[in-house]
C-alpha cells in the first residue's frame, strides 16, 4: 500500500494502515492485545539443541505461523563444540537487528520516506569469563551492544536519524534487552 505524507509517497511494503487501525481497535480492547510467544527446545547432543516455533497466542485465540521453523543452536569450535548452529546469545543480535529494521521500515512508511537500502551490523561485547565462572565480577551477558545502520533513503540525515530513534522507541527487542524482565524458570 501507499502512504502519502506532505506530498511524499513511499512504497516500502509495510501495511501501515493496518497497524494504525489495529492500534485504534486495541486501545479499547486491551485483552485482545495480550500475546504469548513460544519456542520449544530439544536437547540433541553436547551443547547442541534445536528450537521450533510455530504456535503463539494473540487476538484472543491460538494462532499459527504459516510454517514451523526449526533453529539449530550450538557453540563454535573455539568452545570445543560441534558448531551446528549459532550460539544462543547471537540469537539476541538477530532479534535486535530484525526488530529495529522492521521498525525503520514501518516508521519510514508512516512518514512517507522511500527506503532504497537498510543495512545494519550488530555487535555484542561479551566477556566470556562470566559464563566460564573465571571471574565472579564479570557478568554473563553482553557488556555492550552496538548497532550501526547504513540507510539509503529519500530523506535528510536528520530524518534518517529520527527514523532510527523512533524505531528504538517502539522496539520490543530493544526494550527487552535494555530493561530488566522477570524470568521464571521451572521444572515441570
Amino acid at each position: 500500500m501507499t502512504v502519502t505524507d506532505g506530498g511524499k509517497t513511499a512504497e516500502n511494503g509495510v501495511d501501515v494502515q493496518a497497524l494504525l487501525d489495529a492500534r485504534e481497535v486495541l486501545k479499547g480492547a486491551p485483552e485482545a492485545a495480550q500475546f504469548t510467544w513460544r519456542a520449544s527446545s530439544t536437547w540433541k547432543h553436547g551443547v547442541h539443541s534445536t528450537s521450533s516455533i510455530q504456535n503463539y497466542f494473540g487476538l484472543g485465540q491460538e494462532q499459527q505461523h504459516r510454517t514451523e521453523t526449526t533453529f539449530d543452536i550450538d557453540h563454535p569450535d573455539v568452545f570445543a563444540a560441534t558448531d551446528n548452529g549459532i550460539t544462543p546469545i547471537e540469537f539476541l543480535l538477530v532479534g535486535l537487528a530484525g526488530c529495529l529494521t522492521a521498525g525503520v521500515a514501518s516508521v519510514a512508511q508512516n512518514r512517507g520516506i522511500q527506503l532504497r537500502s537498510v543495512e545494519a551490523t550488530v555487535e555484542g561485547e561479551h566477556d566470556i569469563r562470566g559464563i566460564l565462572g573465571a571471574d565472579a565480577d564479570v557478568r554473563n551477558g553482553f557488556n555492550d551492544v552496538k548497532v550501526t545502520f547504513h540507510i539509503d533513503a529519500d530523506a535528510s540525515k536528520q530524518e534518517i536519524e529520527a527514523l532510527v530513534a523512533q524505531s528504538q522507541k517502539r522496539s520490543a527487542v530493544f526494550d527487552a534487552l535494555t530493561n530488566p524482565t522477570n524470568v521464571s524458570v521451572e521444572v515441570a
Partner: protein
Amino acid sequence: MTTVVVGAGHAGLAASHHLSARSIDHVVLERGQVANSWRTERWDSLRLLTPNWLNRLPDLPYDGPDPDGYLTMGEVVGLVERFAAAAQAPVRTETAVTEVRRTDAGYRVATSAGEIDARTVVVASGAFNTPAVPALSQGVPASVHQVTPFAYRNPLQLPDGGVLVVGASASGVQLAAELARSGRPVTLSVGEHVRMPRTYRGRDVLWWMDTTGVWDERYDQVDDLDRARRLPSPQLVGTAARATLDLNALADLGVELVGRLAMVRDGRALFSGGLRNVFALADLKLERLLDSFDAYAGRSGRDAEVGPAERFPPTRVPGSPRWQLDLAAGEISTIVWATGGRPDYSWLGVPVLDEKGRLRHDGGVVDSPGLYALGLPVLRRRRSTFLHGIDDDARAVVEHLSGHLDGSP
C-alpha cells in the same frame, strides 16, 4: 446556586471572572487559601518557567518593571491574590469539597461546610494534586529517605549523602542542579524528556513558542492528544541569568546521568540501557523545533529583529552509564521522585473518569451535562497548560455553560 467552581487557583478565578461577566450567580470553593498549591506544595527556590510578560490573566496584563523575569512562588501567590481581588471572585476559603454527585436539577456539592445544590459545576481543582510515584518505589530499602517535589523544600532538609533524582523534566533537572550545587553527589535517572535552551536567538524560548503559534494549536487538531496532554514539562528553569539547564549543563555540575529507572530488585535500582536513544530523541526534537523557529523568522521577515541562528551541541552520552545502583550500600541516602503528579478526583461522584482515571472531556466540556473542567494541560489549546492560556479557555467553557443554562445543546 447556579454554578459552583471547585478551586481558587488561576483557573477557578478565571472561571469566576467570566461567570461574573455574564452575571451568572456562583461561588468558588477553596479547600485552603487562594492559590493553595502554590503556597503549600512548592519548593523554596522554585520560580515560574514562564517569563512575567507571558503571565497575563483575564484583564490583568503584566505591568511590572521586569517583563523578562520569572516569579518566585510568593510572587505567584501575590499575582493570583491580585487577580482574585480584581475579579471580585466570591471565594469561600477553607471549604473543602468532599463529594459532587448528580441530581435531577444538576449537582449536589458536599463540602466541609455543608451542602450546596448547583445547576452546573466547574472543576478547577488542578492538574497535579498528588505525586505520581511509581509502584516500584515499594522495593526501595527502608534505609533510603524518599521525597517528592510536593514535600521537598531545600537541600538542608535531606539527610547527608548522595541523592538519586528520578525524572528529568523541569522539576527533576531543577532539583538535581540545586542538590548538586549544595555539594551532594547527585545521580539523575533520565527517561524521555523535552530539551530546550532558555533563550534562542536572544529571546526567551517561550517567546518563540508563543510567537510562532506552537501554542495556538487546538486540542481537536493535535495529532495525538493523549500524548500532548501527557507531555513532560520542558527542561527549563527561571533564573535571573536566563541560564539553560539541559543535561549537558547538569553533567558540567557533576550530576551523573543514568537511564530510566526500570526496576528495583533485591534493593538494587536497575536503569534502562536505552539512555543514548532518549538523548537522540530529545536532541532531534529540539533541532526540529529550532528549524521551525528559524523558518518562522524568515517567513515573517523578523530575522533582523532577533539574533543569529544557533545550534546546540548534542547531549553528551556518558562513556558507560551505570545500569544498576545498590540502594542498600549507603551511596544513596535520598530518592527524589520527580515523576510528576496527577489530579485527585476521589471526591467526584460522577462517572466521568476513563480507565486511567482521567477526566473525560471535550475541550473542558465534561461528559456529564452541566459539568465543566478548567486548568488542565492542553485543555483547549497547547497554551492551556500555562497561566496565560486560561483566559480563552475560561471564556469558551463559560460560554458553553451559559448555553447549557439557557437550554441550548
